[in-house]
């Protein structure tokens, strides 16, 4: 079946089974590989994208349900890597291997779309959904705080 998806403000036509998770449509059909596969059951957060500005695990959302929605991936978070979250990640030199970092940044970006001043409890709860095996959490926390400061300037 053919589906029309709006990704990063561009329209993509894909031919697929309706139950294909958005993750695999992005990666295998559209070569938008910034969104990563980590677990397939929403337990690691590596595949996080924004759907209508809310963070969503793209491994759990099928293509059919994405029709008519506005999808943002790491490739479209900003035109040139200057979203406040990306800038904070850059300033703190957060990544080690970098594999999970798109999921980390998209998760925070989603939270900041909901509230500009999240509480510590909200930050902990949301950011704990994304695993970094390299253990860059210490830097992620600093970058989270920096991004929040930036958007509230």
């Amino acid at each position, binding site marked *: 079946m053919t589906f029309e998806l709006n990704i990063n403000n561009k329209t993509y036509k894909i031919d697929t089974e309706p139950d294909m998770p958005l993750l695999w449509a992005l990666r295998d059909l559209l070569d938008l590989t910034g969104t*990563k596969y980590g677990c397939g*059951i929403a337990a690691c957060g590596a595949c996080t994208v924004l759907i209508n500005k809310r963070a969503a695990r793209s491994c759990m959302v099928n293509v059919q349900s994405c029709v008519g929605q506005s999808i943002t991936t790491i490739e479209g978070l900003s035109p040139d890597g200057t979203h406040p979250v990306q800038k904070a990640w850059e300033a703190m030199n957060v*990544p080690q291997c*970098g594999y999970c970092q798109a999921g980390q940044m998209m998760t925070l970006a989603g939270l900041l779309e909901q509230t500009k001043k999240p509480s510590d409890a909200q930050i902990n709860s949301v950011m704990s959904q994304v695993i970094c095996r390299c253990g860059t*959490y210490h830097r*992620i926390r600093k970058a989270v705080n920096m991004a929040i400061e930036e958007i509230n300037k």
Partner: protein
Amino acid sequence: MKKVSIDRRQFIKVSSLSGTALTIGFLFPGLKSLAALSQKECEFFQPNAFLRIDKSGQVTVYFARQEMGQGVNTSLPMIIAEELEADFKNIKVEIVEFGTFPLGEVSFGNPHDTGGSQSIPQSWDLLRKAGATAKAMLIAAAAKEWGIKPEQCAADKGTVVNTINMATMSYGSLVCKAAEMPVPAQVTLKNIKDFKLIGKEQRKTNLKDTLTGKVKFGMDLVVPGMVFAVVERCPVMGGKLISVDDAAAKKVPGVIKVVSYEGTGAPMNVYAGVAVIATNTWAAMKGRKLLKIKWDEGLSNKDNSVDLYKRFAAKAKGKPERQVFKRADAPSAVIPATNSISATYYGPLLAHAAIEPVNCIAEMKENKCELWGGFQLPDWSVNTIATDCNIPKKDIKVNLSLIGGGFGRRLRCDFAIEAIKIARQIDKPVKLIWERADDLKFEGYRPANYHRLKAGWDVKGQLTSWDHHVLSTPIATVTWPDEKKVSENGGGADADFWYDVPNINTGYTKEKFNINRSWLRGVENAANVFAIEGFIDEIAKKLKKDPLAFRLSLLEGAAGPDNRDWNKYRQRVAGTLKLAADKIGWASARKKNHFIGLACHAYPSTSAYASHAVEIELLGPKKFKITKVVAAIDCGLVINPDGLKNQMEGGVAFGLGQVLKDEITVKNSRVEQDNFRTYPLLRFNEMPPVEVYWVENTETPGGVGEVGVSTVGPALCNALAAAGYRPRIQPIKNEGYVWE
């Protein structure tokens, strides 16, 4: 246009400067022969495999080790740029193509090999010389132009300066002339005090691309025409396929083909598998779920973790199979022990669990093979693949990619052998993807390890004897089953004991267990240190001595005769311990319900030493919150301080995950964990504040990938012991500990 004029004789001279395994391989990335080179027009200067300068002045630095988060794509180029006097901000960084160097015959120690925290120690001299040689040739070219002596020139930020009249020539303008200069037999390396780049914080060279989703890991690579495969494996290592009913799987839209293959024996112990090949990953996954397979699990399908632990415990009291280390400076008749204690410690099987599940693209054309993916030991991989898949070594081409977390997982090449076995059965390149459950259930695990320790002391409270019996399921018995000497988890004092005790006796006993094993970040060092640093703390407590002072008394006393440089080891270990203790405020009064634990160690194989201090707040019985962690390291000269900090911070997370909750359990020779809910890695909310410090010195740089892990767990357990609880079994959640 001039031709690049490096003739064969000159090339050999360039080659000989390395004086290492790289000798012949000091070649040119992307250029397979000198003939090809001589036909190139004079557009660039590339005196060796590690750097190239274009006419435009663009400097490209190549690194051979695999980047998997540890930062070699930044630290290694820094070493070259320092000696080359290149402007680091404007250099390009690329990987040295595999095949540039001759294929290595050894399993570890080749130019691309990435493990054991060896990238920096093994590259330091070589890369300095690579940079310095190019600089010398650029200077010689400029000096000739100006008619002055090379000594009258200086280099800075990609420019040669005439020190007489301060005229300058850019590196770019010198490339053709530099290529004609003789290669110096000797080069002068910079004095450490003149370093401008090394020792200054640098961001990762691929940072921007990482943050915009542009970097490509093996998982992200696309080869034209490729198809996708996932594999259902025999649940037990060594088992065989009896039959497969793939009728339902083949009906899934997108599924192209279902193929099966046999497993292999050592060293990789590939599991027998049935692969579903499809036009996309999702279709392959759906097809896989519909397979109906009968396996012959073989004879070894009854192993389980609980029994293994009991077998360890029963054998631990007996004599070790093999003595590992003995020191008998003072026979017990001379200094009789008046008291002694003993204790047992345990560490489970562990998974690597990188967030990028292993994957590999393979294409077979006739019996020639091309691979794309991440390999920590590509030379060993090619040698193993050649044997296991019966492909001539020269016909195996490997394209290396960025790795989304290594930790030792990609030292093995089981995934590549699988990909080849699948690709042989279809005329297209195949991208094999391990699903998360596969990644956790079918890999090579850090061995389970059990430790029985005994120590004695004399009437003065002086430690006189130390006995350490290590029992484990070694890597060697599954990887090199014919090898006589089993070295993994070889027993504390073999490599990982640094205290000055007159009588030391350590030994090792191996245990059979039908689960594959491999090396995990920290290897046996982390397993042994957990036991040693817990037990030394127990002794201090028993002797009513301050744990810091007690350790220092065993590190800073007069050392006996020894074939190692123990004095220096001990001083460096002590240096990190004092630093950690100082920074956490060991000597200050503790806040109410706050307790601090310390642990120190040496990581001799990579010339690094580290300690951790962990502060906890006790919230209730066996309930705590980690309020602060201090990491202190001595790794010699620090190349990139920010990279060091990132590794040490990450080491805290890695170590805490292990001590708190990471555990692979086995039932009927099957791993029970299959996702991040059953194998829960440390999460953001569990990460305590971390401070990283290092001992400033100019010793030869060591590696820092692993040294930051081993002492995290024991330091936490020693803090809990100070609070009245002594965990000895990892993960400590199994002893009822809970944390916030």
